[in-house]
């Protein structure tokens, strides 16, 4: 079904996509390039990320806010890591295998300032952190998170369960260090 609406917005003015594009294109390229280190690949990833973002445009109520900024970073980061894996011939890596992308570091100062659990979330492997932020910060449903990250809803649930377990381990380890 094709449905169009005209004159509720003008083609250029207040176009949410334009605002997002202008606001975040350099940030997105920066994030992608930090992971991939290649201009062409990074541009491809930014484009793919915009495809993903535009599919979820109606879920973005305020283009210029920390939540949207984090959402955009999450999406482009996800796309970049996926491409990185493909480039490294890791396309058959399972979801769990891919979790060790980023070494888990526990920033004691951040922990003190921001709360142990938040710091621990920041120290989680990227995929855990991405799922948790979309679910618990942005408030998306498991199905929506699944769609955004190209996962199944079951996988999202499983990831959240594992993230909880990992967080508990990190916090217990931190407690032990403090003692």
């Amino acid at each position, binding site marked *: 079904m094709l449905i*169009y609406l005209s004159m509720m917005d003008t083609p250029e003015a207040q176009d949410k996509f334009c605002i997002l594009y202008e606001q975040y294109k*350099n940030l997105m390229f920066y994030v992608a390039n930090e992971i991939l280190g290649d201009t062409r690949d990074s541009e491809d990833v930014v484009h793919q990320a915009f495809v993903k973002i535009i599919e979820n445009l109606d879920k973005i109520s305020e283009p210029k806010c920390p939540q949207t900024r984090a959402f955009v970073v999450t999406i482009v980061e996800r796309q970049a890591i996926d491409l990185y894996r493909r480039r490294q011939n890791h396309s058959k890596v399972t979801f769990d295998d891919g979790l060790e992308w980023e070494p888990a570091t526990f920033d004691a100062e951040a922990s003190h300032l921001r709360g142990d659990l938040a710091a621990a979330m920041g120290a989680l492997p990227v995929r855990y952190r991405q799922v948790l932020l979309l679910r618990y910060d942005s408030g998306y449903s498991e199905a929506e998170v699944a769609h955004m990250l190209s996962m199944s809803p079951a996988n999202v649930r499983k990831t959240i369960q594992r993230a909880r377990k990992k967080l508990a381990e990190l916090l217990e380890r931190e407690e032990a260090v403090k003692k």
Partner: protein
Amino acid sequence: MKITDEMLSAAAPLARDLLLDSLPPDDQIPAHTFSPEFEEKIQKLRRRYRWKQRGKRALVYLRKTVAVVLMVLGLSFAGLLTAAAAQGKFLDLFIHVYENYIVYESLSYPGRELEYTELYPVELGYIPDRMGRIHSYVSKEGDYFSIDLRPLDVIKEGSYRGPGVYQGELVELQQQLIRPGDNFMVAFTTEDAVHETFEFQGFTAEIYTKDGMTTLRWFDSNIYYELYGNIAVDELKKIAENIIFQK
């Protein structure tokens, strides 16, 4: 230790701030000059999804609005269309006029046959002297075509690069094919808009001007046209009068 949903909800905004704090602030992120290929892809992406975005908003608007139906016009294509390409479907066009908005809608029914015109990209026989063509686009599905015009100095300077927040003069012409089996709907607000009709080349266009943007809408059989821009209405009319329809 048990990590609950409540604990995660409370900690997530802080975790988000940690993530964002790990990135440089916007003013320290180097501006990247994206390749023309990238800009073109983004432009196409924006163009296709802009329609979809409008559609979603139309649905929301229609659901929220308690409208009074003033008029329903049924314009049948049945007499115009033959069997071959019809796939046994019958297409009607309805124009619903509500209090503050208008809906164009097509409905397809099985069991009736019709012919429909395939999309034939048009040409512009008149372009204002100060403007030039910056983009033409045909969708992969062959059901959508557009031509964009921008001022020559903007094109020459290269200052219009894709879907930036552009504030200058623009003209865009779009064709949308309505195939048998498609349920097509255009909904637009008429509140505070200036309306007139305009006859040209055997067509009757409905013209609405609002907030400096003028839109001409008309149908050629099963092809829907929009010509819109923020230039003078008479200039848009002249562009319409000189469109070259090459069936």
